[in-house]
């Protein structure tokens, strides 16, 4: 145990020292990048099943918010129809990405990267010129406000001022108070971004995820128009914001039943992020040989 602590201390010291000693070396991420979805593919592309919150460090407020969420809300409340992903989630969704480097014409120094995603014209600016983040009471945006510097062969990006959004597209919230740090690095023709999201409103500890892209000069980023449409008359039943009263969501056990998984594991929480949680889970609810959905 002592040797593990020693390794931990040594690791911390080396990384902290190297972060101050190594000279910042700028990396050019410009180009067209196709997203690779081998990590968390079911969650990112078809979308997550209802009531699957496993592997997320959610506090009890987030779990209750997710348990009372009704998916009808994203169509019945018209203002939600055209919203972008949050800046952190945008790196995981339909994430084909074009990156352009912004050069200051006078100094010929890079002052920013601009990224554009395929979904909903999502654009981020990542400032490299050392500017401050806006005041706390300034407006928040979907993508937030990002600044970056180079460190240990990586671009380290810090983002604040995002709007309230979602951690997972099945009602798991993400607050406007969250911030995230990204570590961008290129290896051969691959780009990897490690994302650490800290949400003091809904998480008990940071959520760490990674995403990957491959350089694709043939990629074409398109444009995307969205006009919201009132599809459901509001007010017939007085329900202008669809939601379930606590304890009345009939779909909470659906995913656990489909996959024969213990319900407690599907409700998320920090313990579900770690392998040790398997020991607490006990036996599956049924025979997984009879799986009927996304079984491969």
């Amino acid at each position, binding site marked *: 145990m002592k040797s*593990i602590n020693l*390794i*931990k201390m040594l*690791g*911390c010291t080396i*990384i*902290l020292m190297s972060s101050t000693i190594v000279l910042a070396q700028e990396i050019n991420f410009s180009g067209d990048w196709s997203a690779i979805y081998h990590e968390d593919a079911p969650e990112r592309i078809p979308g997550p099943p209802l009531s699957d919150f496993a592997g997320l460090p959610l*506090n*009890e*407020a*987030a*779990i*209750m*918010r997710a348990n*009372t969420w009704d998916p009808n*809300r994203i169509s019945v*409340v018209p*203002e*939600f129809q*055209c*919203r*972008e992903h949050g800046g952190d989630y945008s790196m995981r969704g339909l994430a084909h990405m074009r990156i352009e480097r912004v050069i200051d014409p006078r100094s010929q120094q890079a002052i920013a990267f601009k990224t554009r995603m395929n979904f*909903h*014209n*999502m654009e981020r600016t990542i400032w490299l010129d050392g500017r*401050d*983040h806006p*005041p*706390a*009471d*300034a*407006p*928040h*945006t*979907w993508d937030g406000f990002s*600044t970056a510097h180079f*460190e240990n062969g990586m671009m380290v990006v*810090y983002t*604040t001022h995002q*709007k*309230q959004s979602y951690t997972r597209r099945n009602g798991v919230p993400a*607050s*406007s*108070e969250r911030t995230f*740090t990204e*570590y961008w690095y290129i290896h051969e023709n691959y780009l990897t971004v490690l994302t*650490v999201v800290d949400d*003091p*409103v809904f998480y008990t500890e*940071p959520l*760490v995820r990674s995403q990957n892209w491959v350089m694709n000069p043939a990629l074409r980023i398109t444009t995307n128009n*969205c006009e*919201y449409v009132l599809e459901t008359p509001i007010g017939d039943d007085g329900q*202008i*914001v669809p*939601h379930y*009263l*606590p304890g009345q969501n009939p779909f909470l056990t659906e995913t656990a039943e489909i996959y024969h998984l213990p319900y407690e594991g599907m409700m998320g929480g920090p313990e579900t992020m*770690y*392998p040790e949680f398997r020991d607490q889970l006990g036996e599956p609810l049924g025979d997984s040989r009879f799986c009927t959905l996304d079984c491969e």
Partner: protein
Amino acid sequence: MNKLLQASKTILLATLLSASQFLLAQDNELQLLHVQGNVYMLSGAEVNVTVQIGEEGVVFVDTPDEDTVPAMINLIQELTNLPVLYVINTHLDEAHISGNAMLSRMGYRLNANLASFGPPGGAQATAIAGAAAGVTLLAHENVLNRFYLTDHNIERLDLTSTYFMDTKDFYQNGEGIVVYHMPNAHTDGDSIVYFRRSDVISAGDIFTPGQYPDIDNERGGSVQGLVEALNFLIELIVPGPMAEAGTYVVPGHGRIGDEIDVVEYRNMVYIVMQRIEALIDDGMSLRQIISARPTLDYDTEFGGFRGGPSSEEFITAIHTSLTTEM
């Protein structure tokens, strides 16, 4: 496996420490934030103050305490020295009106010597002071009624004009300004102010992101009226592409918002209202409802922050609204 896990944790800890250098500075100091067009928001005081600056002068929505007024004027003087023209109060809360007297005496020149005006005098409405200086101090008539007819501990109310219809409009600094009465929301005298060319709405305490709404049942406020007011606000707002920007909203407290921010806030009020309504229908008392924690999932975002109501106060105000005949 254990070592691998510990090593991963160590790297994560190190990267988090490294990232901490980015921590935002705490900015509680007074700042004049440009919202858009002619409109600015004074941030860092006890309340947000909306400031419209144009070729004719300065229009305020709400006023900070008198200790803050000189610093606010210093910030505005970096942009203009033109006189104060209008002060519109969104409701009767001391924190939102206490600078009226000082600003009402600044109608001729914004850069006049504040000390030369002397201390505010009298414990009654000083309509003449503002009128003599050419400043209009406006609020809904119910603000005046509540000041004279109901109990409160507000020392003085400086108004020169009230309105009693649903709206009042006027043209100042090159744009139409429309004042809408929002009945029975935070109080029964709430106004929101729409700067049409700048496309900014000053919402007062109808919209307070980051804290629960202060529903003042004693002064005619109700949760039902608040939801109606928020729905009206959402109708008035036109969002920009992809549900972002467009019309901006200056809240009574908290950060500048746009439509989706108001929608999320309305959703919170509406959902909590429906939960409490269901618990009342189940026969629960107020004490039992508070114990059931119907705001549990919103408390980490709204409960008691920035001096706003606690979850218990919010639940109690909703319960009162739902069980009292209006």
